[in-house]
């Protein structure tokens, strides 16, 4: 599940510098998220599909992610048309379907898919470690980047630790059910996970101090922004600006 499955690849997008991708993604997602016009959002979605083709990712895997992201949109489709009020489209028995409700649900669905696609193609194509260093390069607070890089580093370790405890419980015939015993067991299990990660943190900190840690993490691969990256940045921002300006032309 946490395998960063989109990060490996050799496409145009995989090769770009993470800093550039972060900037383009932030601008693009901002435009898509706050727009209220169907034209803008549909065009943004189409362009996001173009990015998907450029990134040459496994389409089935991406499809699965999109499906998961659409559970919230499904909830909106089930509630908004029935509860929004306003102009009535048709009546289904006791329920009335509202036009504005359907419009809003459709707009949000388009936005959600567009944003998830651009997240996958722009940010998902870099490893999280490189994104952390990219954020540091973009002058995001160093302590915050440190926390991001470090918790990312240890999530897998701690998850394994938790699974070890859970396996141990399973071997002692623990079967989860809806009762107080289950909740007590989970409470203690998680408490033990916390205790272990606390002690691990102390050991890691001591080990790093011994190696001369001064609050800076040095990335393994030093990247410099190449001219290709600048071209990508300019094109990306230009397209974003064009998409954003559509409503001003068609009034």
């Amino acid at each position, binding site marked *: 599940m946490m395998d960063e499955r989109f990060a490996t690849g050799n496409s145009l997008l995989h090769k770009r510098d993470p800093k550039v991708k972060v900037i383009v993604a932030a601008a693009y997602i901002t435009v*898509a998220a706050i727009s209220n016009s169907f034209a803008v959002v549909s065009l943004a979605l189409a362009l996001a599909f173009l990015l998907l083709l450029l990134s040459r990712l496994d389409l089935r895997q991406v499809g699965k992610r999109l499906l998961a992201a659409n559970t919230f949109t499904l909830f909106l489709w089930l509630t908004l048309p029935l509860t929004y009020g306003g102009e009535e489209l048709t009546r289904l028995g006791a329920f009335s379907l509202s036009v504005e409700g359907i419009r809003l649900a459709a707009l949000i669905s388009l936005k959600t898919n567009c944003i998830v696609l651009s997240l996958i193609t722009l940010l998902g194509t870099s490893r999280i470690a490189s994104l952390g260093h990219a954020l540091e390069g973009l002058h995001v607070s160093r302590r915050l980047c440190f*926390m991001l890089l470090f918790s990312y580093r240890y999530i897998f370790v701690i998850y394994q630790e938790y699974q070890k405890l859970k396996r141990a419980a399973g071997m002692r015939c623990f079967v989860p059910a809806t009762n107080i015993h289950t909740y007590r067991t989970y409470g203690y299990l998680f408490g033990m996970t916390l205790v272990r990660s606390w002690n691990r943190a102390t050991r890691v900190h001591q080990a790093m101090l011994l190696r001369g840690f001064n609050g800076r993490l040095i990335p393994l691969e030093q990247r410099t922004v190449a001219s290709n990256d600048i071209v990508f940045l300019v094109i990306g921002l230009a397209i974003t600006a064009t998409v954003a300006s559509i409503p001003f032309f068609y009034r």
Partner: protein
Amino acid sequence: MHISEGVLSPPVLLAGAAITAVGTAIGLKKLDYDRIMTVSLLTATFFVASLIHVPIGPGNVHLLLGGLMGIVLGWSCFPAILVALLLQSLFFNFGGILVLGVNTTIMALPALICFYIFRPWVEKNGHKRKIAAFGAGFCSILLSACIAALALWSTDQGFARAAQLILAAHIPLMIIEGIITMFTVSFLAKVQPEFLIMGK
């Protein structure tokens, strides 16, 4: 509890981002490099908590443990939750980037409130600690659901019913979180009491 990207209106997004920025700035300011390692690992642990599914009737829910984070981390819960949510949106594409501010506020503000209300009680022994821990778990989810509902409602009044549904759907989770937080806190008090004096 995540609100997807593209649902909320710009003023709501801005308000969430502002609260998160202030909270994170204060949280980071209080965090020195001697404690940052511990907080980072606890952030990872709380991320893992969101992968733990506990059964409830025929279905299951995943843990949030915002109340526990508040009690243990204090002001550091803001950067910790921000990082955990960012990792979630990068790993699983839950939530998003622009909505990160609102989602962080939804979880971290109640955690901080729980810290101020229940923390003094948690340091006491016996039943008071258990009641406080249950209260922290229960109230963090209650307040989180309220803030989420408020964010939806102030975006568009048409979300009113959807917001009510979200509130109602979280009631079972409030009770389960309360119970699990209670057990975890009494466990920590026995095994590693340093946890309960850390956030100061």
